[in-house]
């Protein structure tokens, strides 16, 4: 799954650690999600959505052509 986490984070002027603190996870987790090496659970995806004030589908994108 692709995501816009890095772009959104840059728009807010947050470092990975800043975002990790807001989400209550480690910076390692933010990095893994940003790089697409780990897809977050639905509860964490909702928390990310709350932190950025955007719907989940505006942050996480399906890989390949969408249906």
């Amino acid at each position, binding site marked *: 799954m692709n995501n816009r986490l890095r772009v959104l*984070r*840059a728009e807010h002027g*947050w*470092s*990975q*650690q800043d975002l990790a603190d807001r989400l*209550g*996870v*480690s*910076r*390692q*987790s933010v*990095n*893994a*999600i940003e790089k697409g090496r*780990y897809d*977050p*659970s639905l509860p*964490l995806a909702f928390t990310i959505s709350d932190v950025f004030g955007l719907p989940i589908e505006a942050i996480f994108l399906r890989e390949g052509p969408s249906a």
Partner: protein
Amino acid sequence: MATKMSPAMRRYVRRLAVCMTIYVVLIFAVGWLFRHAPPTGLLAWGAAVLPALPILGTFWTIFRLLEEETDEYIRHMLVRQSLFATAFCLSIMTVWEFLQNYDVVPSGNGGFGAAFFWFVGLGIGGMANAWVARKDCAPDDDDLEEAE
């Protein structure tokens, strides 16, 4: 490494230290007992099992860590590490047992049981996780820009 230890990880390290301390005390104490005043019957069973108990405690601390760690990505890495340890241990024990079945190697394990190989596997998995963590915690571009 700049990674902070989570509260669950701190509890794990504390529990592990307690289990290992008890293990070291028991392994020497029970060894001394069997050399100098070997117990018999039921007492021998009880005494022989004693050093195994802190090892079982170590398994419990690992399962508690998996239960208590709130960071899902870290938990994912720990589960992967435990699965690697299990696969590593089972692979070695399976090969070893076949070698014994065909009398290629002598019977017995020379004191190296399944738990030993499981912990070796856990250590290798831990090193792999540490390598990934180091990559994950390298300064990212944004942090570099901030530093300039």
